[in-house]
């Protein structure tokens, strides 16, 4: 849940990139760090082991200030994808305001994708989040590879689900910003009633996304 600090007039919003091991969560964050250009962009903090597997999490801080003086701060995290790090995944997921589920498009990974999504559902339940109301985007990554599930099959598979599905290639940044913007749109809608972005800070959904990313909204 977003935390508003009255002292500093700062709203901190937590976003989490979830998904199976090696699906490209950290790469998503690295590309966002390179490609986004908001008012405020912090150093990316990476905690990985020597073989590039995320140990605890990665963190990318982003932010912008409204003319009203509110600092909107995003903390974008990744979880460790490896099955053994479940407690860490749970801790990172806790109190999040939105989730990107990064699936691996390779046909060989469909079981891992399914298990990881079930794990997301279970951990969300444990930390008191409801997938029915939590802003969530399904991202099918690694679209550049061969032997991947077709877009038609992906869309058909998720047809009954309420969440938007995006396609990406995190290595070259394709679809990365679209994914985040799709999540931010939901986050705006979810938080606006409580924090009155439009009424008090002159932000509508589009300008909220624009300011967060430092670029135009891709339609």
């Amino acid at each position, binding site marked *: 849940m977003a935390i508003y600090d009255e002292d500093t007039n700062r709203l901190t919003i937590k976003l989490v990139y979830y998904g199976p091991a090696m699906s490209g969560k950290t790469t998503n964050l690295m590309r966002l760090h390179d490609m986004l250009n908001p008012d405020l962009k912090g150093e990316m903090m990476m905690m990985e082991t020597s073989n590039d597997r995320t140990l605890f999490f990665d963190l990318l801080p982003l932010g912008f200030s409204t003319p009203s003086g509110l600092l909107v701060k995003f903390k974008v995290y990744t979880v460790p994808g490896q099955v053994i790090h479940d407690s860490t995944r749970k*801790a990172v997921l806790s109190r999040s305001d939105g989730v990107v589920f990064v699936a691996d498009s390779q046909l060989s990974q469909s079981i891992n994708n399914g298990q990881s999504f079930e794990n997301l559902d279970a951990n969300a339940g444990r930390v008191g989040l409801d997938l029915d109301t939590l802003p969530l985007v399904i991202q099918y990554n690694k679209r550049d590879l061969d032997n991947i599930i077709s877009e038609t099959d992906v869309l058909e598979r998720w047809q009954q689900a309420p969440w938007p599905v995006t396609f990406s290639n995190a290595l070259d940044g394709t679809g990365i910003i679209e994914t985040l913007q799709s999540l931010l749109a939901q986050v705006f809608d979810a938080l606006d009633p409580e924090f009155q972005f439009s009424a008090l800070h002159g932000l509508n959904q589009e300008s909220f996304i624009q300011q967060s990313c430092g670029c135009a909204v891709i339609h």
Partner: protein
Amino acid sequence: MPIEPALAFDHEFTLAELLRGINTDKLLQALSDSLQTPVQILDAKSSPLFGANSLPESNQQSINKVALIGELEPIGYIQGEASVAALKSAVQLIQMILQSNSRYLMASDIHIQTQRDDFEELQRRHDALELSKTKYKKLAESLDLRVKQQVKTIESAQIKLYENEKLASVGRLAAGVAHEINNPIGFIRSNLSSAQSYLKSLSKLDEAFKANASVSYLQQVWQEEGLAFMQEDLKDILNESIDGVDRVASIVKDLKSFSRINDAAEENADLNVIIRQMCRVSSPQLKNKLDVILDLGEIPKTFCHPAELGQVFLSLFLNAADAIQTQGKVRFKTYLREAQVCIEIRDTGCGIPAQNLAHIFDPFFTTKEVGQGVGLGLTVCLNAIKAHGGSLELKSKEGTGTLVTILLPIRHKNQ
């Protein structure tokens, strides 16, 4: 183990937190040395944090202040009598230290948090296990109690069955004896009826006498009533009835001395007499198929429970009789062997299959049909013989017959 309620790993760190574990005196000294002027570190609200007294009071105008950025926003400042550019490069350096420390703090915080969660989860599972352990322990205890109660019930039922078995052979005997007694009673009753009708004929003759009837008339009545035959017959039926009554008396006498089931008295008894009595009361019902041979040798009286031994002999005798389907022999043999009385009961019956021999003394082992016996007969016999300090052995060959050998020590008591 109390675990401090740590803040979430992703809370906002203050400058003081991020400088935790770093020697700020040395840091300030290094900064002052490189900038060649004292510097001061302020928190997010510009209150002095470290190096409070390091700046001279004068020259307020020449003091510059540069923000230290945390993740995105200022979390503190450094100030000193140096150029902004010089201070900025110092800030760069400090920020690198802060970033590195923040990595460490977040990593250790999330580590503690996950450890605590894992511990709590383990604790929860442990508690659940403890709970089910207690539950099963209780269950096991009550199960144990119920098993003990059940065993008690079964034991008392077994004792009852065992007692019943003692009576069973005697019960079979009683049925046969009743038949033996009924037979003489039947013909004695019929003889008495005849005697009653003879009394009527005598009354007719008596009436004629009282009426002073002529000799010829009296002769006529004598003839008509067949008093000559009646005299003969009366003699016969009275003799027959006396015989019958004697038979009943003798059966009752044998039965009385034999079937003292619960008579606890011990006495010096002749085992041959007990065997003879037993055969007398039980043989008549079996005489059609059994040829009972008594080969009873010289044996001394022995101090024993005559009633109990009688039952043992009866039980073994009935077993032998049961083993014989149509026609066969049962031989009782008694003799002395090494200061012990040896009693052999040998039959020419069907014998016992080899696979059953090991079980014949087991309580409730039976090959008879349900209702024909509960399987305690030999158990009762063995116990009675053991109580007399003796032994009981059984040899059998299927299709040939069975030999039971009882050895009893000779005991004598002066009464």
